[in-house]
């Protein structure tokens, strides 16, 4: 399985361990990630907040570069960041639906873009293309004894017309993946609630309120940690916790690499130290 890999900016700096763990997991599972040559930032929240054309043009340039990687048989783009995923996929859907818009955006992006590459999130690829049976067959140490809740946040499931790979109200893919790894994954009410996104700097009070509600809900079901698929959620959930008893936050790829017996373990770069993990 070969994919055009879009790492995203956060995964190059504050969430480097997300990228590293995703890469070792993919190598082990035979998912070939080829980085899109000369990719650029998707503009994230601020792009679409202040300038829709900018947001579309930044995304379209990446779509165009991915198309050139294998012109005869376009490969799917894989991202690990849900915000990048939504930006790229929104641009792809809108450019496909409107030739007039496509023409305008191509001029701004500076490259012709047919929007023919599919855009997928790694969670979707692992669960639906690699398959849980295949992953289960490669587990070296089951994660028994861990009680974790799966947190999807917003952009893996919404808007459902764009991010359409799981149920928008009660997604189960990450739950099923963590269960396959042997973890105890209770149902909880916070799965698709918002963490406050890009309000981190400008309204930390609001982020803190949303995060506190999420932590309460996770503690209610006895979770020892929250598993996420987004660098922004990871940061907000860590930094927004105000209780003395803090819950560690993990990327789903970190747990996957642990169960597969790979070198990247849940990192010591977290603000909240994870409990000692058995190998």
């Amino acid at each position, binding site marked *: 399985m070969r994919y055009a890999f879009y790492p995203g*900016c956060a995964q*190059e*700096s*504050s*969430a*480097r361990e997300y990228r590293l763990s995703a890469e070792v997991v993919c190598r082990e599972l035979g998912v070939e990630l080829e980085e899109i040559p*000369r*990719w*650029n*930032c998707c*503009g*994230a*929240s*601020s*792009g*679409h*907040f*202040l*300038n*829709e*054309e*900018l947001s579309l*043009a*930044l995304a379209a*340039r990446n779509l165009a570069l991915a198309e050139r990687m294998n012109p005869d048989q376009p490969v799917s783009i894989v991202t690990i960041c849900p915000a990048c995923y939504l930006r790229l996929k929104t641009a792809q859907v809108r450019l496909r639906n409107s030739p007039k818009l496509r023409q305008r955006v191509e*001029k*701004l*992006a*500076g490259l012709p873009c047919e929007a023919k590459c599919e855009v997928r999130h790694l969670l979707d690829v692992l669960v639906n293309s690699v398959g849980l049976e295949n992953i289960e067959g490669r587990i070296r140490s089951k994660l028994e004894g861990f009680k974790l809740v799966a947190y999807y946040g*917003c*952009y893996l*499931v*919404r*808007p*459902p017309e764009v991010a359409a790979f799981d149920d*928008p109200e009660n997604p189960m893919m990450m739950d099923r993946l963590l269960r396959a790894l042997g973890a105890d994954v209770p149902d909880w009410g916070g799965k*698709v*609630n*918002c963490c*406050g*996104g*890009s*309000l981190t*700097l*400008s*309204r*930390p009070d*609001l982020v803190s309120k*949303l995060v506190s509600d999420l932590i309460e809900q996770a503690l209610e079901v006895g979770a020892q940690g929250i598993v996420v698929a987004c660098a922004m959620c990871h940061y907000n959930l860590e*930094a927004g916790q105000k209780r003395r008893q803090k819950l560690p936050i993990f990327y789903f790829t970190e747990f996957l690499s642990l169960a597969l017996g790979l070198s990247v373990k849940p990192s*010591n*770069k*977290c*603000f909240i130290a994870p409990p000692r993990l058995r190998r």
Partner: protein
Amino acid sequence: MKYIDAAAEEQDQLFINELREAGLQPKLCVQCLTCTLSCPLSFAMDFQPHQVVRLAALGFKKHVLSGSAIWVCASCQSCSARCPYGIDIPRLMDVLHQVALREDIPAQQPRILAFHQVFLWCLKMLGQPYEPLLALLYSLKTRRIPPGLISQGISLLLKGRIKLVPIIRRRKAVADIFQRIKARQ
């Protein structure tokens, strides 16, 4: 929830047309309140999301742009995912930010606007966001250091999650896109 008396404002037909041309259909709204009840941040807004949609449908531009709702919205998409008429409310909010900026209407939440503006400056300068520069520019622009910023910045540095040397990525390609957009306007 804030009671709105928009009787003093005239309906702005150009504004109504602009929203329609952007593909938005606030007129479909039947005020069922699903958006407002789904919104995780409605407690921090004066006008509620369903009021924003109504004001937009009626063309009460000054009113809708004067509230906090459009700035506080985190674009979590809960409202649009559940809207029975499929109104893209987060995109309506985005278009409203852009109208407010274009017409120099002051943001009710200047710090939220400031964050997004410095993010784009950073993008224009480096091609990608760089957290320390973002924090510095934001503090300068708002003339205030956000609470907890310094301690968190230090922990990020000590943990090696941010570097002292910024990463520059496709600076020229990104700046060219900014340039072409500016030239079109």
